[in-house]
């Protein structure tokens, strides 16, 4: 025993020196002479296969089906109860059964990564999840939000009491969603992180497990959602930002009344999402002048707003680039190599054992940092542009004769239908016809 130890220790020491070559066979595989023992096969590993691709296509089919049904229910059937039932189905299917992945909101990042990455190509099913809701919104309004999106559904079921926010606060908070969208695109395009998925507040509920901080955030949003309708959809959802623009131009859209508005004011407080536009009072001619001055001055200062936002974007880009693992690793290696920190972390150990030259790492990191510099400015410019547009939009005075849905903000939930006396009339007629 002792002699063998004397031999093995130097051997092990030698082996330790060649850590990078650990795949080398140190101990030859055995020849079983006494027994005819067969080596077990590794097929047991590969026999456990992922969910069939067929099921992914089924998911897409369910998405298309629910979108069609939702559009029919919102535009033709006009039944809040049916919309609610479909919404619950989507919550169960896309939320609790499919565990929230893949979702249309997150698919933005897959698309962006697919544009910027050489190695990643977006799978067809994910592409369908991105495009289908947008296409439906372009024709029928945000029926996706109404009854298909599980994140919208989980917030919609907890909404009990509505607290109407002033319009200025509403648009101000909505800026968060634009920022979120911009940041998600920036981080996905640099292959740093999928922040929409990482900070998805409700996916932990769907999976019934998750990080504690996200659970707390989700719970907070749901508590807020009891009083303020769908806070994530209105103030954070990056996909909602895109849907808004599509919904503005939609060919058909949910209407409060089935035929003509009689301005009875009954629907005025029906919308928990601040998405009903009231008729405007006739205003004096001097208002036009005031409005023109306001718009002209916004147009004049908008380049200043955009410029300031670009500066702000440039100043944060450096700290944001630390979201990228390569940048983080390069900074750590730099600190370690220059004796500015003591010890190593897993990342630096892994990097050194891989044997990549440090200069290559630094070069990669500086490329990514430059991308962030450019992307940060672009993001800032985008936000400045959005702020200017919001200001202009809020200062344009539009003449409205009747109560209308605000096409961008309306999620087609159908809550307002029942408040319209014309709708009641229609239902009565339908009943008579069927009787």
């Amino acid at each position: 025993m002792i002699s063998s130890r004397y031999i093995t220790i130097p051997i092990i020491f030698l082996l330790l020196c060649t850590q990078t070559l650990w795949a080398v066979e140190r101990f030859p595989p055995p020849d079983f002479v006494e027994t005819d023992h067969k080596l077990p096969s590794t097929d047991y590993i590969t026999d456990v296969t992922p969910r069939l691709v067929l099921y992914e296509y089924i998911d897409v089919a369910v998405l298309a089906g629910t979108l069609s049904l939702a559009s029919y229910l919102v535009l033709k059937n006009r039944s809040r109860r049916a919309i609610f039932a479909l919404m619950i189905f989507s919550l169960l299917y896309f939320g609790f059964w499919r565990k929230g992945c893949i979702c249309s909101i997150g698919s933005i990042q897959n698309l962006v990564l697919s544009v910027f990455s050489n190695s990643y190509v977006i799978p067809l099913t994910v592409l369908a999840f991105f495009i289908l809701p947008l296409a439906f919104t372009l024709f029928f309004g945000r029926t996706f939000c109404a009854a298909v999106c599980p994140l919208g559904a989980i917030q919609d079921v907890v909404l009990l009491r509505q607290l109407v926010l002033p319009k200025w606060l509403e648009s101000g908070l909505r800026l968060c969603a634009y920022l979120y969208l911009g940041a998600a695109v920036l981080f996905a395009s640099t292959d740093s992180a999928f922040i929409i998925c990482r900070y998805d507040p409700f996916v932990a509920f769907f999976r019934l497990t998750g990080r504690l901080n996200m659970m707390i955030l989700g719970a907070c949003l749901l508590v807020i959602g009891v009083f303020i309708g769908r806070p994530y959809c209105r103030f954070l959802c990056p996909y909602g930002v895109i849907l808004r623009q599509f919904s503005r131009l939609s060919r058909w859209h949910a209407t409060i009344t089935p035929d003509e508005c009689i301005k009875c004011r009954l629907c005025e407080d029906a919308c928990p999402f601040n998405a009903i536009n009231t008729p405007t009072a006739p205003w004096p001619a001097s208002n036009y002048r005031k409005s023109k001055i306001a718009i002209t001055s916004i147009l004049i200062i908008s380049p200043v707003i955009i410029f300031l936002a670009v500066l702000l974007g440039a100043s944060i880009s450096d700290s944001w680039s630390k979201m990228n693992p390569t940048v983080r690793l390069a900074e750590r290696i730099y600190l370690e190599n220059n004796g500015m920190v003591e010890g190593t972390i897993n990342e630096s150990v892994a990097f050194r054992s891989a044997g990549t030259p440090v200069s290559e790492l630094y070069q990669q990191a500086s490329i990514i940092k430059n991308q962030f510099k450019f992307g940060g400015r672009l993001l800032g410019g985008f936000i400045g542009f959005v702020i200017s547009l919001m200001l202009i939009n809020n200062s344009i005075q539009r003449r409205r004769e009747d109560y209308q849905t605000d096409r961008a903000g309306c999620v087609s939930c159908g809550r307002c239908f029942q408040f319209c006396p014309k709708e009641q009339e229609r239902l009565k007629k339908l009943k008579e016809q069927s009787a």
Partner: protein
Amino acid sequence: MERSEQDITRRKFLNRGFFGILGAGLAAIAVFFGKKKHNPKMVWQLDPQKCIACGNCATFCVLEESAVKCVHAYAMCGYCDLCTGFFEPKPRELDTGAENQLCPAGAIKRTFVEDPYYEYTIDEKLCIGCGKCVKGCNAFGNGSLFLQVRHNRCLNCNACSIAAACPSGAYKRVPADEPYIIKRVQHA
């Protein structure tokens, strides 16, 4: 001036124009990305050659019991008596005492085959994917034990939390029809 429904106002004209632009944009995205050569589905997997068995797989998975488990490439295994994947890899004090066993979950089964060979099998139900055995096997053995994402458990999250926490960049998306990266015998 009276306007009938058919008249195209400036607003309507602009609306229709933008409608067309957005519609065409969507179609362009669909065609451009739909035409690319791609796999219908990608799944997460870790490259065992890059893995440093840091233990993050056990703790960062969104599942309470990680989707990552240890698997065994038997063809690479030396069937050692004193397996450093099974026992604490401290060669000086190594003995087969139960207190020296490495696996915190008792998921490795050690079976006598013939003198001096022992076979090591992983009970996946017990394995927590901590990679302690992988580290030990890599350090002093043949490296036949390695971690893999088990696809009966993996939820295939769009943004894998383990991938985000992996210090060596071992995680990548692989085509679903080839979902494993199996270690094979390498000759130096």
